[in-house]
């Protein structure tokens, strides 16, 4: 699969930046305010001068007026750690439905990467199924987007979804807290609540991007069919009547509502990304409306 965006779309992405509800400490100077005081441009506060402080930061006007040596403090601007969790399990591309959902997820990830790279953020791509596979860090700067495309194109679906195990694995690596985006269909037999809460408990600003397709939502009245679970291979013979299909659609809506409600309750950003919609529309409209990008 080839991932690529036209130059217009890339131009539009450059004007966007990922909104983080929290300020995180970065590693290098960049454009993001951090909680740290440093050498930024943005005035933050005063404090009493103490021996050894840089004379250049003494506010001499305040000394003349108050007779005290006060030191001007500035906000430090650093990069933002962005972790992109991409669900690469079989459920994202079932044999019978095609790879649209997974490909859409990769495109969204690429778009987010570009936004982050354009603002010198530290983007880490982490495909996962039941564990986090090899994490990939393309570097900084928007020129790295082609490396991102290359990385994403190499990803293949496989394995079963186990977000809890994958995120536990991620947490065990002692990463800095940052903006964490989980792109998945959230069809995890063990549930999505615990893993998302785990990320948040680690101090991450979490966004959940739910991938969905029309086939996921409405199977139609298929009659007698043998459903095969794309991940476990489990087989179930079902006679899909119109009523059963309606019940399934209701169940799917309920599942989505549960995810949305959960995210709202725990201050987790939630965005639904339907496969049928163009990436541009999702990023430029849905992500903005969801205050994910600005």
């Amino acid at each position, binding site marked *: 699969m080839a991932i690529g965006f036209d130059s217009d779309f890339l131009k539009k992405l450059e004007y966007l930046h990922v909104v983080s509800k929290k300020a995180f400490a970065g590693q290098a100077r960049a454009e993001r305010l951090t909680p740290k005081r440093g050498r930024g441009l943005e005035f933050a506060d005063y404090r009493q001068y103490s021996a050894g402080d840089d004379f250049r930061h003494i506010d001499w006007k305040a000394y003349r007026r108050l007779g005290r040596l006060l030191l001007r403090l500035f906000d430090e601007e650093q990069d933002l750690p962005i972790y992109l969790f991409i669900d690469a399990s079989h459920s994202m591309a*079932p044999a019978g439905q095609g790879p649209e959902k997974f490909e859409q997820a990769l495109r969204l990830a690429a778009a987010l990467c570009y936004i982050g790279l354009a603002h010198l953020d530290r983007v880490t791509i982490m495909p996962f199924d039941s564990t986090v596979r090899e994490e990939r860090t393309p570097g900084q700067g928007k020129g790295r987007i082609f490396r991102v495309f290359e990385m994403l194109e190499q990803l293949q679906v496989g394995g079963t979804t186990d977000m809890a195990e994958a995120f536990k694995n991620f947490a065990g690596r002692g990463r800095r807290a940052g903006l964490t985006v989980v792109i998945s*269909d959230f069809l995890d037999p063990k549930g999505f609540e615990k893993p998302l809460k785990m990320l948040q408990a680690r101090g991450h600003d979490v966004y959940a991007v739910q991938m969905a397709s029309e086939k996921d939502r409405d199977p139609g009245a298929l009659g007698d069919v043998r459903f095969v679970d794309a991940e476990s291979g489990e087989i179930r013979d079902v006679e899909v009547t119109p009523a059963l299909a309606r019940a399934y659609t209701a169940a799917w809506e309920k599942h989505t509502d549960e995810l949305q409600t959960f995210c709202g309750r725990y201050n987790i950003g939630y965005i639904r990304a339907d496969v049928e919609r163009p990436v541009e529309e999702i990023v430029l409209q849905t992500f903005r409306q969801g205050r994910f990008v600005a």
Partner: protein
Amino acid sequence: MSFGALAGWQAWLALLATAGLFSWLFFMKIRAPRVAVPSLLLWQRVLDEAREMTLWERIRKVVSWIVITLIGVMLVLAVMRPAPSVTAASGGRRLIILDSSWSMGAETSAGETRWERAIAEARALIQSSAGDEVAVATTADGLVEGPSTDAVLLEAALDRLAPSGGEDSDWPKLANISKVHFLTDGTVPRAMADLEATGADVVVQSVYEAAPNVAITAFEVYEPGDPTAQAEGYLELANYSAEPQQARLVVTRGTREVGDVQIDLAAGEAVRQVVALGTEGDARVRARITAPNNALAVDDEAVAWIARAEQLSVTVVTPEPGFLKVLFDSLPGMRVTYIAPGVYDRPRQGAEHVLVFDHWVPPTAPTKPALYVSPMVTPGTDWLGSSRDESKPVWATADRHAVLRGVDPATVMLERARSVDSDAWTPVARSATGVPLVSVQESTSTRGVMLGFGFLEAESNVALQPAFPVLVVNAIEWLGRPTLSGQLRPGVVAVDAALTRVMSADGGTLPITAFGEAQLVRFPRPGLYLAEGGGMRTTFAVNVGDPQVSNVNRTSLSEEAQAQSAAARANDPWWPWIVGLAFVLVLVEWWTWHRRITV
């Protein structure tokens, strides 16, 4: 429950197999298409929570399976014609006697014949006699099978049976019988006294149902002596029904149709019909009658054989044909060859039907029927016996033999008679002194007539008397065209002791049973039969031709017996109800399926 089409165990086995087959078919459904889904998580929830919570969804598949299996079982059950078991509580040995008279072939209003009805009732009796010894007999064949407790054996015996007459046969008897079931239409009254004398409880089960019938009740062929005159067929046709009927009579001679007439028969009317059969043609004559209401088939056809249609071939071995040539030249229907004694060659025999040895005896006995006229026994021909002469014998006694039919001894004056003393010959006419004048020989190997006198003027005046052609033609006919006397009907018939072989039209040989001095042959069905014996062959017809058989509208059974049997059979056949039930089950399954795909 018993079954009309199969033995009980076969029926139950078939039902079991059907249930298994339909169950297998139910579960061996066409494989549903495989659809890969991201996860069964939500389907699992839906199925667990939504559908399987309802009782109907939990039992629907089982209901469908049961219904489909029942549909199959019901259809097979209907085909096997189930009926309520005949409960004949008895214990002990039972004898089932089937009336095998021809009238049992009459068709009933239900489409089955009385015989099929009787067989079905016999099966039911066998099925209900579990553990008891049962024997099966027919009025024609006597004991057929059993006593046995093996229902399969008994029912297999029933399968082999068919109506075959037997109106005159003896009742089958069996010792230690506790109960006798006589399945009959009562058309042929039978004395049951001897059965009741055995102390058995005799139950007469009627299969009678009045049925209209049209029949050929008699068929004879008249063969005139004049070869230019036509042979004629005399038929008697009867309508044994309460309504007048128009019948069609078709008579064929060989493959040529010689008569096709429409006959209006009033109710109960019997008419006689004469059909000209022509002067030439095949010897086989067949008459067939058809009518709209005609229950019995066996009496719709009658056959006859015109013996004169086949020319007799006679070889006369004589030094001087004389009067014999004059006689034979005037006789129609014979092909006569004259040869001198010196030319006679025994190995060359074969073409002729009858040999005539005039004043000469061959050195060895001929294999063909032979007429010896005043045989002159010489030292080389003494195989015939020793001869002695009598001068001016007087014809004194004569038996009623076919050879002498129409011969008036009073007109015969004999100058000299030559008799042969031999145990092989039976005198049928003697002189006053006891010298045999006419002798006959009849055995399985040969047949002969010996005249102790010649036809020369020095021997007798026979050649000038009416007795001459009568005696010679009688002898030739008896030798060359022996017939079985009387009107032959299917069943056991006493036949000529000289017969060695009897064959049916299809080439099958009928067994001949020696019974004392007589021989008995059982003719299984109407038709033409060929008999051989004594070097001769003859064809003869066997017809039902009996008003007693054809009148299937009467019965000797009491109305009470008929009513009881009808009540036992009463109940309408089950199979239409079973088919109806199967149809209802199909609707149920359709509804089940409809619910499955729409709800």
